[in-house]
């Protein structure tokens, strides 16, 4: 039996705290709470933006030995997430990936795949597969 901590963690990074919370609520309702899930949105002053420090904390909150898949919205969310990964302990860096997928749809796809016990690469590919379908 797979326990929650064996499952890939899902991290949501948005410029908006409300968007991040909304996506997390959709994941929790549609997929369930049996996966590590954490989210962050907004900068440290409470405005729109993202914060490297907050992203690091969020990755650690959703940490799983199976790794963590990050869903981001726009530019800064991605570059700050890349920076956050670089600032993680070395042994964790290669177990965190940023999915090239739309944040809402990608989060649902990634979470469903994680719920089923898939590995990090499969979780990332599933999220990205959905993004490609929409082109």
């Amino acid at each position: 039996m797979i326990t929650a901590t064996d499952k890939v963690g899902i991290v949501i990074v948005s410029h908006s705290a409300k968007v991040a919370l909304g996506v997390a609520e959709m994941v929790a309702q549609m997929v369930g709470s049996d996966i590590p899930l954490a989210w962050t949105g907004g900068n440290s002053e409470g405005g729109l933006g993202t914060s490297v420090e907050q992203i690091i904390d969020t990755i650690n909150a959703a940490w799983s030995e199976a790794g963590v898949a990050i869903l981001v919205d726009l530019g800064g969310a991605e570059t700050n997430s890349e920076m956050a990964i670089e600032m993680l302990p070395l042994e964790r860096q290669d177990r965190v990936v940023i999915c090239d997928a739309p944040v809402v749809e990608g989060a649902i796809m990634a979470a469903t795949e994680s719920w089923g016990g898939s590995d990090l690469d499969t979780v990332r590919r599933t999220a990205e597969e959905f993004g490609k379908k929409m082109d």
Partner: protein
Amino acid sequence: MDIHGSVQLVHAGGLHARPAVALTKLAKTFRAKILIAASAEGPWIDAKSVVKVMGMKTPAHSTLFFHALGDDARAAIEAMTRLVEEDFSGAPE
């Protein structure tokens, strides 16, 4: 074991996001290979792929066809058709 089943989709919105996730989650709890189609002739889609199931965009009142292969195929077909009959209320938590 090679088991077939079919069930009418009663969910008002058809096989949209939430039902697709519920169906995929249930499929993933079985060892059997589970295929789903909106027609008896296919095309058959992997019921464990949330992306593909959501991409079916099956409207309400269509019939869903299942085909399962494996030692727990019978239990899989029973559970999958029951989930659809019960309007997706019985998905695994």
